[in-house]
């Protein structure tokens, strides 16, 4: 008997007992849907987080120095020297100062991010100027009270003409010398809601110190080498790696990817258990079906069906059952993932791989668990089977 006939027969017998077929498939449906949903959501989430981290710059190495307790220390001058000595590796450098003072203009407070940076920070962050100029070397050298503002403040506070106006940060009046082009959506608390000032000025205004240094790498492929260069230098000074930390965004992303993958595996494994249970459900019903159809098997055998004919019929029937369940599960899973993705605002469209994998697994499970009942059917003695009531 051909594959196609067996397949048609299997569909027919499924259609003939819809309620039972549905209940048989339920385990597979739930299992496949769960796998699809979990994989899609985790992938959507990973993509989302990766893109956030990528926005922070994969070409940037961030160095923090915590020299308390160390006999020696490094300052911005030392790291500037390191940067200049390795011009073939680094293309930009900036100390970073986080300023937490209140931002005020005309007695209104704003929650803008205030950062002290170098004149090369524009390259690191890939900013462009809308108008005016960026912070200059001279501003840093002479502690000039100037700043560059993002498009949010320019639009909302100064109606597009911020240049030459002032803004107060922690009680200090800063003159606005430049406006950045929009990078986000110009809304409050977005990436466009910021004030940049010379890092030297920032230290004074914020009564704080440099919190970290950003090294911009020319070639992202050499980022590990660049990390080693900085690490060797700092280790040479501190004789220990307890006093500094070099954050490589790419390695963070890689680590996170790995973590998310592991988590996905664990979750899929758990969802996989229900696929297994579904398979056992199919086996159970197939065993019942073999018993119910003992006489049919006897008739088929008396008419010349060989063991492999009977075997094939039942294996295909089990495979078809779980494949149909798998398809329903995939559709259900895809629908739920897309819906949930929309709800939490991530792209959770199932990948082709997830779909292909779960379809394959569900057919495999059907065939695997159909094997035992099918071989039981195939081995039936035709005389006993014919006499079976």
């Amino acid at each position, binding site marked *: 008997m051909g594959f196609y006939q067996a397949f048609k027969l299997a569909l027919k017998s499924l259609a003939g007992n819809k309620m039972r077929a549905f209940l048989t498939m339920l385990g597979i449906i739930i299992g496949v849907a769960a796998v699809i949903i979990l994989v899609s959501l985790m992938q959507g989430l990973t993509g989302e987080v990766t893109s956030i981290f990528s926005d922070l710059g994969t070409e940037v190495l961030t160095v923090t120095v915590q020299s308390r307790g160390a006999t020696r220390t490094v300052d911005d001058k030392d790291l500037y020297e390191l940067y200049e000595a390795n011009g073939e590796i680094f293309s930009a450098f900036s100390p970073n100062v986080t300023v937490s003072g209140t931002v005020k203009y005309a007695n209104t407070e704003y929650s803008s991010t205030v950062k002290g940076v170098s004149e090369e920070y524009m390259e690191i962050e890939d900013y462009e100027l809308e108008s005016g100029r960026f912070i200059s070397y001279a501003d840093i050298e002479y502690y000039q009270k100037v700043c560059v503002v993002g498009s949010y403040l320019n639009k909302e506070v100064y109606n597009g003409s911020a240049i030459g106006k002032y803004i107060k940060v922690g009680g200090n009046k800063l003159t606005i010398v430049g406006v950045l082009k929009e990078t986000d959506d110009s809304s409050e608390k977005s990436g466009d809601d910021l004030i940049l000032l010379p890092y030297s000025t920032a230290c004074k205004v914020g009564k704080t110190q440099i919190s970290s240094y950003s090294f911009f790498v020319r070639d992202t492929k050499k980022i590990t080498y660049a990390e080693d260069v900085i690490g060797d230098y700092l280790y040479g000074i501190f004789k220990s790696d307890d006093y500094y930390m070099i954050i490589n965004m790419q390695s963070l992303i890689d680590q996170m990817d790995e973590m998310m993958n592991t988590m996905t595996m664990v979750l899929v494994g758990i969802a996989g258990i229900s696929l297994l249970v579904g398979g056992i459900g199919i086996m159970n019903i197939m065993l019942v079906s073999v018993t119910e159809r003992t006489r049919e098997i006897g008739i088929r055998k008396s008419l010349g069906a*060989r063991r492999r004919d009977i075997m094939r019929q039942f294996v295909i029937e089990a495979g078809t059952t779980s494949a149909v369940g798998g398809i329903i599960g995939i559709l259900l899973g895809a629908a739920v993932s897309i819906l949930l993705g929309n709800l939490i605002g991530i792209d959770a469209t199932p990948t082709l791989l997830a779909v292909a994998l779960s379809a394959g697994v569900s057919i495999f499970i059907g065939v695997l668990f159909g094997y035992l009942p099918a071989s039981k059917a195939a081995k039936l003695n035709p005389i006993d089977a014919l006499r079976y009531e």
Partner: protein
Amino acid sequence: MTPIIDLRDIYKIYYMGENEVRAADGVSLKIYKGEFVAIVGQSGSGKSTLMNIIGCLDVPTMGEYYLNGEDVSELDDDEQAYIRNKTLGFIFQQYNLIAKLNVLENVELSLLYAGLSKNKRTELAKHALERVGLSDKLKNYPNQLSGGQQQRVSIARALAGNPSIILADEPTGALDSKTSREVLDFLKKLNDEGNTIVLITHDQSIAAEAKRVVRIRDGKIIYDGDAASAFEKR
């Protein structure tokens, strides 16, 4: 002439606990092409065992069975299936049609296992159904037919593959006398057309329709001869 069925000293022995049951106890029987043989016996006489062996559904414990000159007494499962498919057509008491297949599909079944193409199967099955007068019921399901019609479907199924022997096991057992008559007449007609028919029954009036009667008791043949003299002694 080579007999179609040649049983040589066949034994079939079962063990039920301590007891040895000889369902076939040294049976030798030759059946030639074109014969219409009735195998009769009470229930428990061993006629079913004989029919299973003749039908290649079972193998003898001892003895040799030549079917069309070929030794079939020691075949495995699949080889038996092949022989059944090629040389035997079964008609059962309970019709044994598959309920979820329609009439045409039921008749096509043995042709399917013979590996024939769809077109060839349909052609042969339609022809067989024509012979039993059921050309108008191709798409009906067995439960939509009367008992007599169902038995005719099963006869068509037995005929479809053009077997050397038609083996009928109590073919009228589930039918009323009128339809029994029809089925018997049909079997006779098939015999007149040259088909070899082996009929198993416990009913003497049915057996009397055959040309030759073989009577079985306790696994042994106690009479083998023409139908007329088979029953006059009793």
